[in-house]
């Protein structure tokens, strides 16, 4: 179960006031559907109880704020207080909150729907917000804190950022609901803090899943800046990222982030000894095929040293027909035939020619882009040994493509 999925289960459990185990039926449901269900459930509860809450708000206007604070803490309990909070007059709500214990306010935050209580939350003094955030952080309630980032002012968020440690900050940022908000927040972080957070991700706590999970939502420029910062640190940092990505199967998060790095940083990553291990390369190839990530992978292969390129070629020798199609399609769509042909050229025989024979079976439009690349790199000698393994259809496609560049003579008779 992904971290995102676990967080959505927890948030729904809080809305329904049940244990997360009661939601076991949602184990296989995607996080987005669980989130949507939670929003629907919140809406349904609010609509259903709206007449009662209207009366509560009217009655509350008859009572002094200290009495309301007493009733909230002694009688109502945090769940009901959270639901009433969203309906209160802002000024009275702030007055009540100022009289409540920080621990109780933290309890209320676990159940509060930030969108319903937007105006009230924004009116709460910053020192109180910081105190509640510290209490939530001490309880490891990063999921709950992440829900408030979309509502709080930038000044309040930065005040909270200052009091959280790097791990708390990283985990909270991962659970932020409106990830678009992260761009403007992280822009304000000092480089030293960013480095500290990256080192925290790379520590024994292994917070790379959180770090990569949130980085993929940042704008490409900021993402590239962070990725370059990580690559500029000692090799251990990149190695720990690689180990974590492999262990957690996070290549679909990591590869687009690595693609936003500078070429120098990519080169450091591509030449880590660990990445050139066969099992890691097979993993990357499998993700590249399944998720269409070849345009991110091939530039990395290009930056590898000779041994790395050969290791990649050997790992790619056993691509099946569908996987190969994803590779040649990427080569065709992204003008990466040079990279693909170099990879094929490095494969062992006879797999190399089996692969070339299969490439000939690609759709005509793809074969049409392959032949000019073969011509430019003068890889015609790849086709001769592969020719007997090809089907008639494959040969016809190659002939047709060669005809378009007037090179029919380079093909076997």
């Amino acid at each position: 179960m992904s971290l995102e999925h676990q967080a959505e289960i927890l948030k729904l459990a809080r809305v329904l006031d049940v244990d997360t185990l009661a939601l076991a039926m949602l184990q296989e449901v995607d996080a987005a559907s669980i989130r949507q269900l939670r929003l629907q459930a919140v809406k349904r509860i609010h609509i259903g109880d709206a007449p009662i809450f209207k009366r509560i708000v009217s009655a509350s206007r008859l009572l002094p704020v200290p009495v309301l604070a007493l009733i909230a803490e002694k009688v109502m309990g945090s769940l009901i207080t959270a639901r009433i909070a969203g309906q209160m007059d802002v000024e009275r709500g702030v007055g009540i909150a100022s009289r409540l214990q920080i621990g109780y306010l933290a309890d209320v935050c676990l159940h509060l729907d930030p969108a319903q209580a937007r105006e009230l939350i924004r009116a709460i003094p910053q020192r109180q917000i910081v105190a509640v955030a510290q209490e939530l952080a001490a309880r490891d309630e990063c999921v709950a804190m992440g829900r408030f980032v979309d509502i709080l002012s930038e000044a309040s968020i930065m005040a909270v950022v200052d009091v959280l440690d790097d791990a708390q900050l990283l985990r909270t940022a991962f659970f932020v609901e409106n990830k678009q908000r992260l761009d403007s927040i992280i822009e304000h972080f000092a480089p030293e803090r960013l480095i500290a957070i990256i080192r925290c991700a790379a520590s024994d706590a292994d917070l790379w899943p959180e770090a990569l999970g949130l980085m993929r939502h940042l704008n490409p420029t900021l993402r590239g800046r962070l990725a370059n910062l990580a690559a500029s640190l000692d090799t251990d940092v990149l190695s720990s990222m690689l180990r974590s990505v492999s262990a957690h199967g996070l290549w679909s998060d990591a590869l687009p982030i690595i693609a936003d790095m500078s070429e120098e940083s990519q080169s450091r990553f591509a030449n880590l000894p660990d990445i050139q291990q066969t099992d890691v390369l097979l993993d990357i190839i499998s993700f590249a095929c399944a998720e269409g990530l070849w345009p991110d992978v091939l530039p990395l292969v290009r930056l590898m040293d000779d041994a790395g390129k050969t290791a990649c070629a050997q790992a790619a020798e056993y691509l099946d027909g569908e996987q190969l199609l994803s590779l040649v399609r990427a080569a065709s769509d992204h003008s990466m035939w040079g990279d693909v042909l170099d990879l094929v050229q490095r494969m062992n025989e006879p797999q190399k020619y089996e692969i070339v024979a299969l490439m000939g079976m690609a759709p005509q439009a793809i074969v049409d882009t392959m032949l000019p690349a073969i011509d430019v790199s003068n890889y015609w000698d790849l086709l001769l040994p592969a020719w007997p393994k090809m089907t008639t259809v494959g040969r016809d496609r190659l002939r047709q493509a060669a005809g378009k560049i007037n090179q029919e003579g380079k093909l076997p008779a």
Partner: protein
Amino acid sequence: MNRLDWTDVLGEEAPAGIAVLDSDLQIALATLLAESQQRQRSQLEAALEAALGHVPRVLRGAVRRVLFP
């Protein structure tokens, strides 16, 4: 419960990932949602009764009339 109609439970169609669950799991989930809403409503009503005990005597009648018209 026979065939589940999510609009009865949520007021709208269920999210795609929920709608494809086995029907017994959907029914269990819908029951959980309905029970939760009912339980929270009961807690709320009980809390309002209890809250009246903390309202100054002089205002209690007025507050009661607003809360329980």
